[in-house]
């Protein structure tokens, strides 16, 4: 338990909103989470091939991309990957679809950071 808490979580954050990704990664690093930033699905796939991650946070609504398709690709590469989805309000249906395709959970945007961190930690623990 303590080992878990001390060990930094490797997180891949995928969102096309650069400002959001940047500030979240800064705040996460203060909460013992190492964030790898990806501004698009392709970035994310490359990152996923290069390194191992404990948890992925994936924005479902990015310009020119279908979040669910990216989720399926992730799951193909790393089947037991814990993915937390971020959705806009009102697109919970897509998020529920995502859970059917193996996502861990979803949060609606804009979400509280502490909530997100709690969810990431939960996912990390579950995966272990």
């Amino acid at each position, binding site marked *: 338990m303590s080992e878990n808490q001390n060990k930094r979580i490797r997180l891949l954050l995928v969102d096309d*909103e650069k400002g959001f990704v940047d500030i979240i990664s800064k705040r996460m690093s203060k909460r013992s989470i190492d964030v790898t930033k990806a501004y698009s699905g392709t970035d994310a796939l490359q990152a996923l091939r290069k390194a191992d991650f404990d948890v992925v946070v994936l924005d479902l609504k990015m310009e020119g991309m279908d979040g669910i398709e990216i989720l399926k690709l992730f799951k193909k590469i790393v089947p037991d990957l814990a993915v937390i989805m971020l959705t806009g309000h009102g697109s919970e249906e897509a998020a529920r679809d995502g859970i059917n395709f193996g996502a861990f959970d979803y949060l609606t*945007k804009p979400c509280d950071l502490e909530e997100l961190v709690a969810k990431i930690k939960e996912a990390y623990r579950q995966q272990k």
Partner: protein
Amino acid sequence: MKNVKHDSSGYYRSLTRKMLLTIIIVSFTPMIMVSSIILYQFNLSYHEKVEAHLEELVLKHKQNIDNFLKEKLGDIRFLGEAFCCEELTEESFLQDKLVMLQQEFGPVFVDLGVVNAQGFQVAYAGPFKLGKARYSDAQWFKKAIKSKYFISDVFLGLRGLPHFIVTVRDNWKSEQWILRATIDFVAFNNFVKNIRIGETGFAYILNREGNFQTKPYFNITPKKGPYRDFLKIKEGDLKKVHMIEKKDESGKKNLYVAAFLKNGDWLLVYQQVASDAFADLNKTVGVAIVILLLGAFGIILTAFLLSKRMVHHISVADQEKEMMNKQIIETGKLASVGKLAAGIAHEINNPVAIMVEESGWIGDLLEEEEFGESENLDEFERALKQIKTQGHRCKEITHKLLSFARKTDSRAQEVQINDLIRELVELSEQRAKYGKIAIHTNFQEDLTTIYLAQSEIQQVLLNLINNAVDAMENKGGLLNITTGLEENFVVIKITDNGPGIPESNLSRIFEPFFTTKPIGKGTGLGLSICYGIIQKMGGEIDVESVIGSGTTFRIRLPIKGPLES
């Protein structure tokens, strides 16, 4: 608005007129044509029939009279040839012969006389004392002495009574003498007197000078009128029956049928007023015209009612179509507003999220660095908290917009009316607040969900809420929304305490284009669309209003599953 209404009512009026005219023309033309042809043919054949009948009548009488005259002449001829002058000038012998004739033929022969060449009556048998009368200057004598047989015109003669005579001339001892017989006028007159048809038909006989030879039933002046036309007829046509239709002195159209008697000396005329002669025809024509007029009236009435009813149906259909178009436009508007709102909400979400996170980052940094001594630390923390709070408020607003936009979907789905109203109230609250209007809700919590098009019921409720807010906007007020269950219906009541609706407007409030808002402000379609939507859902909408205390709109929606709807 007014103009449009005026134009359309003109359009419907002209449509009614056109239909009316078409129906009338199409049904009248054949009716009139057929009836006129039939009437014309009937008229023609009836005329022919009447004329033929009259001609036959006149011809028959002409022959009768001619035969009568011939017979009488024959009797006298026999007398003149059988006995010599000497025998006949003996008055007792003559008297015997008269009695014999009267016994044989009745009182047709009034008297007998023998006149010598000088015009003196040498013998006489009869009721008058005409013993030695002198006829040398009499018209008849002058003619009679010149021909073997002679029948005179009617004249008064010495006795002063109308009569006519038949004469036979013979020779005795190279002296000419004449046997004459007077024919009873009454007996002769009866031949024509009895020719009576209808009320105005009668006959008489004229001589070549146009003098009556019989006593006419009606008083007429023979010198005038069409008799002269007949009298002009030439020798060749004397045997035929002639017919003329002409107006008499009183201006009435008369039918004259004439035939010559006595080798063209006399003219038998039958005269009848045309309207009397054709009375049956005129009666039939009258009945036909009455039937035609009644038929025409029936056709016009039917055409009028039919075209009125059809145009009414057309106008109702047009109105429904227009309403549906407007509803589609309204729904479309709402959907595009929804899409726009969703877009904006989504776009705003990201910068707001970044702002909130950045402020959170400042908070993180403040905790880390030793800012504990800073005298403005409390203010920093307060400001950051405020940014966070306001960020969340933005999030809530965008959430409301997004859930509104999501419900512009017009497909039927499971709807929880309470939730829907809650969201609509949240959307309207800001506007209500500006109008000093408080919105209270009183929901039945265990309300059944119903299956219907969310966007449509949302449109109805939003419309009613907006109307209530409009009504109370100037003075402020209270808007009360309640939900409840009644048997198989979900009941929604929207009550305001605004100025109320006058009774005269209340009955028209769901009519399309009815509005009390100033021109340009309201289309008058809102409530009629609401009415249409609720009807389509199988529900009911009604309104109660009391002037000065407010208005309540009540909607009843049937609870039914997806299959039933």
